[in-house]
């Protein structure tokens, strides 16, 4: 509790004791003939002023400033009205109850604000820089690019850079939501905002603080609240009309019925007072943005940055998702996925797959082509050693492949054309991916299929998304049709468009957008290379954070910090829950208010219930909103 809140608490206790004593006295008839007369007013005014003097002060001040419809003024009017109809104890009690509610509300808001702040507490406070052999703590803002900083065990990494010395495990949970620490060794890139594990690291910085990961994330999250969701805008607009309408209603209620029906004003003024108490839209105005704030907070804890409440709202309505293939659904790195030795028929000599791979790896020993590298890697993975002394006379046949001598034998490695050129009997392979045929001493050895590998969890990601209500999953790629179809059937995608040029992607997304009905939303997920136009064109642009380009992160609405497509489904769920909570709050708050308004007009609800409908509902709605923040990703 803050000092202000504590002060209020003392005032509440004091006023409560006084008021209770007075009410007991009245009940026991101690006031005698005074009961029910104006003489009791000053007596009840004491607890009333103790608890409500600031409300009256603020009301008066705000009227002077031209702010008529504020809650202080309305509360003052309502309680003065109650005094006017000689409901002294009620007037004081309602003010007391109102202040209790306000205290609760301020406490709850403070708590939720604190927990959001804690979660966003990834900002490093200092950087250790070596100066004249001594470590000095400086503001990360003052560290220049290329400086050497030292990060001790347990410290937060202040700037992006490359590890120059030392080895450690870093906790990236704050950035990616991944709880398994990542290894950091010399030469590796390291991101600010991560927490260093047990080893001391020396890091050469590559970015200024303002450009480093942690500063960017904080900026994104802070700006997120300025992009308001449709629901949020609606509530703000609603609040603008709600208060004046209810106040006018109260005035009408106070004067019209008695003039038409006759009789005293007292009863009707009392009913009008209940109206005034309910007229503040605070419950809605606080809880709706708080719900979205919580949802965005919960997603960022999972390692997904959502750039605004409007995008969270859009994700909840997502029915179609379009993926870019390379880098999003696949890893974007080549691997030997199949070894097809010609062990039967075509080849004269039987070769085990190991020998085929060995010869291919040795043959490709001098090349830096990604395909060659992937073959060597596959061989080394099986425990093979590449001894380049065994290789001689490498000759490249442009557009076909290479011809080398391994252990004195002539080895041919290349595409179908090479086999045809050298008149070797081979078996065509129709697999997706790049096929490398190999022959030794004019005999066909077999073929290696090299392709891009599907990301771990990509299949599950598609399954989860379907379960979460996404109707159509589409893949776009510039790759060959066969390769695209292979990935599509492995992942269970609904639609594939292959052999596209970058410009084609935009037109396909536009066509899909036209096919959307009503509130259905379309998302595009890509790693960002050439994707920026598509990312902006789609209703929701999702970019890969660690692989993607800065331009893509800028253009995207949602960023997956660890490139894990499974997180998309998690965000959809998170967004749905957030929207559900927000809707609950709107229905609940408006429902209770409407109910009490009706009951109040009919004379069936008193001021106590009205105060509950105002501050009580606000507190409950705030607590409900907090559930959005507590959401877990899985």
């Amino acid at each position, binding site marked *: 509790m803050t000092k202000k809140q504590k002060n209020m608490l003392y005032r509440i206790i004091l006023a409560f004791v006084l008021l209770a004593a007075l009410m007991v006295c009245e009940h026991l008839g101690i006031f005698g003939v005074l009961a029910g007369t104006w003489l009791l007013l000053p007596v009840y005014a004491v607890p009333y002023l103790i608890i409500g003097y600031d409300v009256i002060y603020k009301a008066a001040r*705000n009227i002077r400033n031209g702010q008529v419809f504020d809650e202080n003024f309305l509360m003052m009017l309502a309680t003065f009205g109650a005094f006017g109809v000689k409901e002294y104890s009620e007037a004081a009690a309602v003010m007391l109850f109102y202040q209790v509610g306000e205290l609760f509300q301020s406490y709850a808001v403070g708590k939720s604000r604190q927990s959001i702040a804690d979660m966003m507490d990834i900002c490093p406070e200092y950087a250790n820089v070596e100066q004249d052999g001594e470590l000095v703590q400086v503001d990360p803002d003052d560290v220049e690019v290329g400086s050497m900083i030292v990060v001790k065990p347990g410290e937060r990494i202040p700037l992006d850079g490359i590890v120059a010395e030392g080895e450690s495990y870093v906790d990236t949970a704050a950035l990616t939501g991944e709880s398994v620490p990542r290894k950091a060794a010399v030469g590796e890139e390291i991101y600010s905002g991560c927490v260093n594990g047990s080893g001391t690291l020396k890091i050469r910085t590559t970015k200024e603080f303002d450009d480093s990961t942690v500063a960017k994330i904080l900026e994104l999250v802070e700006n997120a609240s300025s992009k308001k969701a449709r629901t949020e805008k609606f509530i703000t607009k609603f609040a603008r009309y709600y208060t004046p309408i209810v106040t006018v209603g109260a005035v009408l209620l106070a004067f019209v019925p008695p003039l038409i029906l006759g009789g005293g004003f007292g009863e009707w003024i009392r009913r009008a007072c209940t109206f005034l108490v309910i007229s503040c*839209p605070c419950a809605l105005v606080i809880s709706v943005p708080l719900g979205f704030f919580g949802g965005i907070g919960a997603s960022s804890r999972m390692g997904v940055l959502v750039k605004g409440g409007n995008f969270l709202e859009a994700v909840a309505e997502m029915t179609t998702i379009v993926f870019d293939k390379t880098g999003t659904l696949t890893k974007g790195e080549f691997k030997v996925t199949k070894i097809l030795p010609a062990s039967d028929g075509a080849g004269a000599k039987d070769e085990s797959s190991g020998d085929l791979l060995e010869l291919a790896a040795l043959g490709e020993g001098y090349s830096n082509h990604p395909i060659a590298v992937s073959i060597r890697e596959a061989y080394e993975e099986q425990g093979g050693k590449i001894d380049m002394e065994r290789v001689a006379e490498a000759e490249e046949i442009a557009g076909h492949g290479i011809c080398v001598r391994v252990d004195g034998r002539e080895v041919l490695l290349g595409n179908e054309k090479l086999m045809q050129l050298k008149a070797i009997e081979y078996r065509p392979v129709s697999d997706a991916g790049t096929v490398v045929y190999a022959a030794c001493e004019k005999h066909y050895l077999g073929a290696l299929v090299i392709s891009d590998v599907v990301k771990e969890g990509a299949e599950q990601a598609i399954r989860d998304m379907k379960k979460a209500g996404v109707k159509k999953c589409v893949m776009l790629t510039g790759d060959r049709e066969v390769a695209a179809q292979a990935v599509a059937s492995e992942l269970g995608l609904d639609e594939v468009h292959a052999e596209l040029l970058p410009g084609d992607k935009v037109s396909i997304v536009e066509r899909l957008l036209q096919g959307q009905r009503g509130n259905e939303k379309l998302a595009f997920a890509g790693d960002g290379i050439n994707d920026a136009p598509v990312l902006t064109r789609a209703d929701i642009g999702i970019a890969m954070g660690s692989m993607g380009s800065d331009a893509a992160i800028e253009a995207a609405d949602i960023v997956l910090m660890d490139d894990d497509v499974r997180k998309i489904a998690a965000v959809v769920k998170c967004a749905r829950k957030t929207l559900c909570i927000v809707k609950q709050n709107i229905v609940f708050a408006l429902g209770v208010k409407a109910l009490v308004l009706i009951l109040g007009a009919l004379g069936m609800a008193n001021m106590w219930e009205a105060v509950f409908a105002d501050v009580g509902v606000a507190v409950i709605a705030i607590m409900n909103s907090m559930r959005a923040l507590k959401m877990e990703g899985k």
Partner: protein
Amino acid sequence: MKKKFKLEDLDCANCAAKMEDAIKKISGVTDANVSFMAQKMTVEAEDDRFDEIMKEVAAVCAKVEPDCKILM
């Protein structure tokens, strides 16, 4: 130019919305945002008159919510 300011004692969400509206109406202000949750205010306004505009912003805020202080 866009600048961020911390706010102190911003106690009511409705006031934050009212402040935002009022600031947006000041001439020279291109965009404004008052975040009740973050207790922060972002003002985007003409460069050369920024200080002048900020004085107006402070006056407007004091009118809506006199308790709230802008930390400049």
